[in-house]
């Protein structure tokens, strides 16, 4: 079966629509969408599952703008950077024009990001073919350190990552194959299932969060999608505006891809930087929204570059996707390009289809569906999510023991979330932790515990140096950067 098979194309279309709906409804997130979808996708084979996953990730960030247009509430954090401006455009001109202003630049940003994804991932893979366990160790460490240093509190980041990696140590160890922390429970010998953990952290903890804040008003009134000349406003007028702003589109796309490529950064940071740059230039609301939405979608493709080429996730979404790759028996990195070349091409193709056809064409359809769904109270949706979490966790392995894990990990995820700990780093710990241990132990066994061997190969030395430079640079940068962000963050909490 290929990505052009009817099953895979259907999965891509349905995945896009599903991702768009989750991305658009404030309170439902792209990570929740994937967590609930994975138990179903696991049964459908790699091609169909990956097509659906690409559809979900490619459209969920764009769809965050639908919430901004309809109810002035960003569906995803990446849309928060320009929600005011986009909603203003919707009110002053028309919701159709605002949706077009979101869909077309999103598609263009995603397409330019895809170009960089193809070139960048192939280039990185060529470099990664020279890597041995020493280089991989430094590379994985780079991903871990940048993830921990990218969050406002290093202590919280270290704690979240440490918990994730500790969870990943449960089961057989990679060096001697000795069981660790299983307490005689056979179901734990294979380790904690990544997908069960994902459902617990992003599904159960979300429901518990809503239970804790039950009395807070969460529903907003939608303004609807009224008005004439929807096609003209959505395609023609928005298209004309995009053509006029073509220079900004290219600039924001390049900026977004670069930010997405950086480990620890992501779509929301890309959107904030890009829209703030336009604000500083005195840009009109349409221009600010265009720059922000272009950058955050380009960042999605940017985050896939290190994920595909090196197996290093750039953000939470790609960390989840890497876990999904592994669950499907595919190891990202040079091995993916060597053994599954056709799959790589099909991934690019699916990205292309999702960006160029589904985003602009499906954008308005998604908005219509979301407009109807927004009338369903959030508490009803969250009740349904709880039921689906139970089924999803059980369906992965048909093992009732996983439901105990769901409760325990759900409680852990809830406590961490309420305390302001980044759950994405727990996931990063579960994905990168075992790789770090594996590459370290392999290197040590090869050299009879000669620690200096980590600095003997030129590429390993360069990567070690990059780790030091990154830590010094980020720590220096943080002193000014987070000091200005800390106050608003605490006020929000």
């Amino acid at each position, binding site marked *: 079966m290929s990505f052009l098979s009817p099953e895979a194309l259907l999965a891509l279309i349905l995945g896009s629509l599903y991702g768009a709906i989750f991305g658009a409804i404030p309170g439902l997130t792209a990570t929740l969408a994937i967590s609930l979808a994975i138990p179903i996708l696991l049964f459908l084979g790699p091609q169909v599952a990956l097509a659906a996953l690409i559809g979900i990730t490619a459209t969920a960030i764009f769809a965050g703008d639908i919430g901004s247009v309809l109810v002035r509430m960003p569906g995803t954090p990446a849309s928060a950077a320009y929600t005011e401006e986009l909603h203003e455009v919707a009110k002053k001109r028309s919701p159709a024009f605002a949706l077009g202003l979101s869909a077309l630049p999103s598609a263009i940003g995603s397409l330019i990001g895809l170009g960089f994804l193809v070139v960048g991932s192939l280039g990185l893979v060529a470099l990664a073919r020279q890597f041995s366990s020493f280089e991989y160790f430094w590379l994985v460490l780079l991903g871990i350190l940048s993830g921990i240093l990218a969050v406002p509190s290093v202590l919280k980041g270290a704690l979240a990552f440490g918990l994730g990696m500790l969870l990943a140590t449960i089961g057989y160890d990679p060096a001697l194959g000795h069981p660790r922390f299983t307490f005689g429970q056979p179901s734990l010998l294979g380790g904690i299932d990544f997908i069960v953990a994902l459902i617990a952290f992003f599904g159960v903890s979300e429901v518990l969060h809503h239970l804790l804040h039950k009395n807070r008003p969460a529903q907003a009134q939608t303004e609807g999608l009224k008005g004439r000349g929807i096609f003209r406003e959505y395609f023609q007028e928005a298209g004309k505006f995009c053509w006029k702003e073509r220079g900004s589109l290219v600039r924001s796309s390049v900026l977004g891809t670069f930010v997405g490529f950086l480990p620890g950064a992501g779509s929301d940071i890309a959107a904030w930087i890009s829209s703030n740059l336009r604000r500083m230039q005195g840009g009109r609301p349409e221009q600010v929204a265009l720059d922000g939405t272009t950058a955050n979608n380009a960042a999605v493709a940017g985050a896939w570059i290190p994920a595909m080429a090196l197996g290093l996730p750039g953000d939470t979404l790609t960390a989840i996707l890497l876990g999904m790759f592994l669950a499907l028996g595919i190891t990202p990195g040079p091995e993916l390009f060597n053994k599954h070349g056709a799959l790589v091409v099909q991934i690019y193709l699916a990205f292309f289809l999702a960006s160029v056809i589904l985003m602009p064409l499906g954008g308005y359809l998604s908005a219509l569906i979301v407009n109807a769904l927004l009338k369903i109270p959030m508490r009803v949706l969250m009740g349904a999510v709880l*039921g*689906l979490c139970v089924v999803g966790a059980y369906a992965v392995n048909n093992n009732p023991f996983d439901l105990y894990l769901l*409760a325990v990990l759900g409680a852990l995820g809830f406590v961490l979330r309420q305390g302001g700990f980044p759950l994405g780093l727990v996931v990063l710990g579960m994905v990168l932790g075992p790789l770090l241990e594996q590459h370290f132990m392999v290197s040590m066994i090869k050299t009879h515990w000669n620690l200096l061997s980590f600095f003997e190969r030129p590429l390993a030395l360069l990567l070690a140096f990059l780790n030091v430079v990154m830590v010094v640079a980020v720590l220096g940068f943080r002193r000014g950067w987070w000091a200005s962000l800390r106050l608003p963050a605490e006020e929000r909490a």
Partner: protein
Amino acid sequence: MGTMQVWERTAALLAVVLGVLALLLSRGLPQMEGGYPGPALFPSILGTVLLLSGLGLWWQGRRAPARLQGGEGRVLLALLGLALAPWLLGRLGLSPTAGLYAAAGALLLGVRPRGALLTGGGVALLVYLIFQRFLGVQG
């Protein structure tokens, strides 16, 4: 602000406990030939990281006011209910269990009984059609 402190301290305490447990339990893991550290190495490092970061966070927030919000009972009830899921699954089957959790979750979230029943019924039907009929999940 105060409520976040409660959870932050809870997480810090949890990290300390888990860190100490990891350190203690990893002492029982075997070493490699030549006395080199084996499976115990990373759990010991992680135990230390958790212990130190937990203590650090506890120290940082020691003077900040902390108070509970009031919805913790509902959260606890939901978690206790989740722990019953394997037992319920064995007695009711997959789709009724999913429907029951959806309905109970909706009720706890403040949905009226009729709405909660509809939510539960909808989820049970969805699970039956997608997971059991289409994907062939046992249960």
